[in-house]
């Protein structure tokens, strides 16, 4: 049996406030297996995004551990986590976060540039991924000239460029209309499946959640069975 690509144990996080600490996550244990897709739902403020930031090591927990393919990441340096994050996971955000000075192709290639030396294989893969998301004709367009759906497709291609074993998506359809959101979600699930990547999806949409292998509901700082 293969080991989890992502695992958390007793993950706890609270934010400081003048009135005292506000607990967000309390002892969250979870695991995502290779190739598995997991959706997280929850009310606003339930800690979905915080959980995603903790498992991507963008924030540190107050207690508990996060393990990427068995390695406890908070025992390593922040530079190690940054370097590892580059190849271990692809990130997709609600607001796309494309770099406005770069065209679609260059935005996708940024993931490979951050990894280190840019190779011909990286360039080829960027073109293939843009072709897969239906943007081969718009590679030289800057984000300002792309629609919301197109921008999110570029972000999907960027997330998958380094063939990460894990894709984290934080409400990737939140800024899109229903139809475009449907297309993008379909594409995300399909790409992860084809690439063999695990998917950790934060969403409000119960319909999208049902398309993942496993659904979790975050409430009161922990997972709730529904």
């Amino acid at each position, binding site marked *: 049996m293969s080991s989890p690509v992502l695992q958390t144990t007793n993950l706890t996080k609270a934010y400081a406030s003048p009135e005292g600490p506000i607990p967000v996550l309390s002892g969250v244990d979870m695991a995502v297996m290779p190739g598995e897709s997991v959706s997280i739902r929850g009310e606003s403020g339930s800690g979905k995004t915080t959980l995603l930031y903790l498992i991507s090591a963008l924030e540190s927990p107050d207690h508990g551990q996060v393990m990427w393919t068995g390695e406890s990441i908070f025992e390593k340096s922040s530079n190690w986590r940054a370097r590892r994050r580059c190849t271990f996971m692809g990130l997709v955000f609600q607001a796309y976060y494309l770099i406005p*000075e770069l065209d679609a192709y260059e935005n996708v290639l940024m993931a490979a540039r951050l990894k280190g030396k840019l190779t011909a294989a990286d360039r080829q893969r960027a073109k293939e991924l843009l072709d897969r998301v239906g943007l081969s004709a718009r590679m030289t367009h800057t984000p300002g000239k792309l629609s919301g759906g197109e921008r999110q497709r570029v972000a999907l291609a960027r997330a998958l460029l380094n063939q990460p074993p894990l894709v984290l998506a934080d409400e990737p359809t939140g800024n899109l209309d229903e139809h475009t959101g449907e297309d993008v979600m379909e594409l995300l699930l399909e790409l992860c499946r084809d690439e063999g990547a695990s998917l950790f999806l934060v969403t409000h949409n119960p319909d999208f959640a049902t398309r993942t292998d496993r659904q979790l509901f975050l409430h009161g700082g922990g997972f709730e069975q529904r």
Partner: protein
Amino acid sequence: MKWYFYLALKQLFPSGRFISLFFVVANIGVMLGVAVLLIVQSIMNGLGSEIREKMADTDGHVRIHGSGIIYDYEPLVQIAQSMPEVEAVAPYAEGLAMMMGNHIPQFPFIKGIDVFDEDPVVPLQQYLKGDAVVDDLDDERVFLSSGLARAIGAFPGSTIELYSPLMLEKLKRDEMLLPRELTVAGIFQTGYNEIDENSMVITLRLMQELYGLHDGAHGITLRLKDRDDAEAVALRLNEMLDSPFYATTWLDRNQARLFILNLEKTVMSFINLFIILIASFSIAVSLFSAVVRKTREIGLIGAIGASSYQIAGIYCFQGFLIGITGSILGVLLTLGGLSIRGEIMQGIALLAGDPTIMQRFYGFEILPVEYQPLDFAITIGLAIIGSTIAGLLPAMRAAMLKPADALRNE
């Protein structure tokens, strides 16, 4: 290319656009700062060189003096001529006198020269205006400086009366000595205001007569093959000469003026340095606003694997690059601007309503300019350092942003 350099370049030269407005404006700031500093320094160098040359030429590179009148200066001439660095030697006598021209009294500085020996030492001929030649000078004639001639309304052919200090001595003994009537043989202008304002040149023989020097002189002037040898030659002469004789250089005699010249350049450079500082601050402010505007992008870059040092590198490199390109443009503007300085000065003179104003007041029609590599190196270095530091401050802010906080930024 490292990705952070690549991204820095892309922010300055975005895809689909030739160049960013920020890059243009920031470069103009640095360019102007560098150009103003270099133009001022180069002109000050040029003026300084011109004045130094005039000082050395009109004063003589080295002088041998005594404690008073040197009645037998020939042995001193021989000692000076024995030195390989010495090109020419001439005796001189100098002092103050009273004169009258057109009923206007003046108290000029007067110098007596040996007509045959003087020109190789102090190139008087090149300062004479019109058709006058040094050979025109004899015991009945005099050369006036342009300022003095203007003050008394004299011109070649005019007559003046010269009263010497010896007259006072004679008066004490109840003797009467009439003033010497002399004809103006020519007018000279060296371009060195101090000399041009109020001085005259007569023959050494006449000076000896007027001052009661007999066959003596006040000193020996030496012209060297290379004026830079002046201090070394003076040092060796002082080892060779017996008291009361001693040698001084044109540098010693003009120490105060040379100090002021250097001080002027330093002060002007210091004042103009603030333009570079202002340009650096404007770069810093622009980059700070870019960092604030791009907070979420910085967060994204951090989230997908950039370290804080690499993120800092983006903005630091931009400042560095602006320093380099702005400096190159500043150097080009300096060279280009100064290459047409003649036309610019003509334009200024025309605006002032007098095309000859520069020549009349400053003694030149085109501004003297001297480029010194050290000035260029220091100015460019300061511009690059200033711009890089300007980039460093916003870079530090960018580096301190936590990706999660940056992504949450509204």
